[in-house]
């Protein structure tokens, strides 16, 4: 991968992870900064223009390493947390909330994994009676840049030491090789965001196509790993509702349904401020966004129907409509 500039926080210049990443990329110049926020946070930045050619920032996450998920979000665990070892993504989904949340499209990688481990361990140790889940891949794609970040190697290894704590690795990437270095771990869930091909073509630019994602899921499952299906966001409409049903059939005919860890369905949702910002930087998609956020009884009915079709293949208590 090639970057014009690599911005590195002075404090982590000599870190093992920093060196590791630098060894794997081509770059024009290293520019040192004191805090990543100096580069990443300024307001007068255009996410869309930067997205054409993002730089990479290597930094240390100092505060708020782990967050609680919204109360109603679950895949069946008693307590849920999320964390991000990276901000921003190689893909370019038009509905991606990151472009509303961040000012910059530069890839920001936090290299102080040990600090994450400490924080996660603290939470696990104070929740020994609960089954808890940690979600990764909300502010980036967990697997897409794994060859740089070594996320899988580090975090799968870390989580395999615990019984009551689960890690969901959320992805659209088919870069699954790093997983196969490990014996399948019962407390890791590889969860794919998945949509029919026409939706992928329309809204999920640069992402692997449906068949590739399905093949990856199959391989992961065959190797003995937990898999999750995330129909989230779902873009079901009168026009494509049949395609969504054929899509389900295709998925469930290929996978072993009894071994699927969980299925979630979620509508497109986005805080108003992010939405306003996105429409400003990609006005060409304002029509789509207006349709996405429309509250529609018909859509609700179609989702219910979609849900009941999933029930034909997967046990009801594994399906979550978030």
């Amino acid at each position, binding site marked *: 991968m090639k970057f014009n500039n690599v911005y590195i926080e002075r404090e982590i210049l000599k870190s093992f992870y920093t060196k590791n990443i630098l060894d794997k990329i081509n770059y024009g110049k290293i520019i040192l*900064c004191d805090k990543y926020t100096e580069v990443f946070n*300024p307001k007068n930045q255009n996410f869309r*223009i930067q997205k054409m050619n993002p*730089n990479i920032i290597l930094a240390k996450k100092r505060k708020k390493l782990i967050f609680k998920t919204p109360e109603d979000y679950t895949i069946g665990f008693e307590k849920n947390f999320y964390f991000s070892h990276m901000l921003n993504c190689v893909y370019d989904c038009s509905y991606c909330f990151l472009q509303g949340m961040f000012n910059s499209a530069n890839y920001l990688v936090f290299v102080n994994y040990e600090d994450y481990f400490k924080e996660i361990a603290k939470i696990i140790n104070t929740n020994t009676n609960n089954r808890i889940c940690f979600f990764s891949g909300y502010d980036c794609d967990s697997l897409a840049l794994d060859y740089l970040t070594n996320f899988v190697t580090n975090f799968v290894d870390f989580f395999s030491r615990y019984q009551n704590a689960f890690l969901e690795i959320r992805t659209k990437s088919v870069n699954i090789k790093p997983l196969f270095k490990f014996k399948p771990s019962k407390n890791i869930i590889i969860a794919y965001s998945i949509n029919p091909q026409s939706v992928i073509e329309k809204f999920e630019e640069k992402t692997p196509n449906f068949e590739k994602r399905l093949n990856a899921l199959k391989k992961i499952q065959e190797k003995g790993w937990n898999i999750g299906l995330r129909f989230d966001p779902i873009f079901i409409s009168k026009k494509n509702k049949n395609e969504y049903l054929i899509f389900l059939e295709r998925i469930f005919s290929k996978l072993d349904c009894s071994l699927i860890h969980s299925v979630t369905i979620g509508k497109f949702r986005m805080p108003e401020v992010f939405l306003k910002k996105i429409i400003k930087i990609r006005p060409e998609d304002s029509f789509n966004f207006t349709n996405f956020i429309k509250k529609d009884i018909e859509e609700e009915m179609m989702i219910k129907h979609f849900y009941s079709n999933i029930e034909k293949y997967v046990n009801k208590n594994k399906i979550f409509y978030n």
Partner: protein
Amino acid sequence: MSEAKAFIDYYSLKKKKTSNFSLYYNDLISLTICGIGKINAAMSIVQTFYEFEKQKNNIWINFGVAGHKKEKIGSIFLVDKVIDNETKKKRYPFILDNCKINQNSCITYNKPNFNYTNNLSDMEASGFFFGCEKYSSKEFIHSIKIISDNEKKKINFFNKDEVKSMVLNKIEDIDTFIKKLYSTWTNYFEKKKKIENTIRNILIDYRLTFSEEKEFSRWLSMYFYHTSNLKINFLDNKKDIHTNIQNIKKKLGI
């Protein structure tokens, strides 16, 4: 001024009469001679912004001389980090791909600095960046510095021809940089500006409250982007805005 002369000739700029800074322009480019110091640099940004119809998100480039410990006189650099020596505040320009000009960081001093380091030293860049960020996006704000002095040598600033010819030697490289930046700018903003102007012209024919204007603009913009059609014969300024919005919705199938 001698640095500016090279650009004025190269881009065939003509003088604009203003009270404070000297401004030159053609249809596409304007040039402001800001003088020495970061305060002048920042003030010249404000003046230029107001002189040219307060257009946001334009391209802004600072060009000027700088010192460096060992870089050759006459070589040019694109600033990739600017540090204000007084406040220690920093800015990091976003440099587009394939830029052929070498990069360097720059420290802006309040007084001439002869303690040369491996950073460029100047007296304007920080004022320029802090001024511009109110009016444009980081990707379009840049500073190019030409080395005028180093530990061993210094150009004769009083020799106007020497300064001008030093700049002329690099003007093609600078022009290539500007053209690349302009093409990125055009790709992103041209359609946007066209649509904004069309909407502005439509709104002239309507008497609307602030919130009505915002709502109407939102729907017009959605229509123009979605259909890529700037024809508006289905609008009727004799009808109220709600009827017109309904018409747009009908056209969009919403």
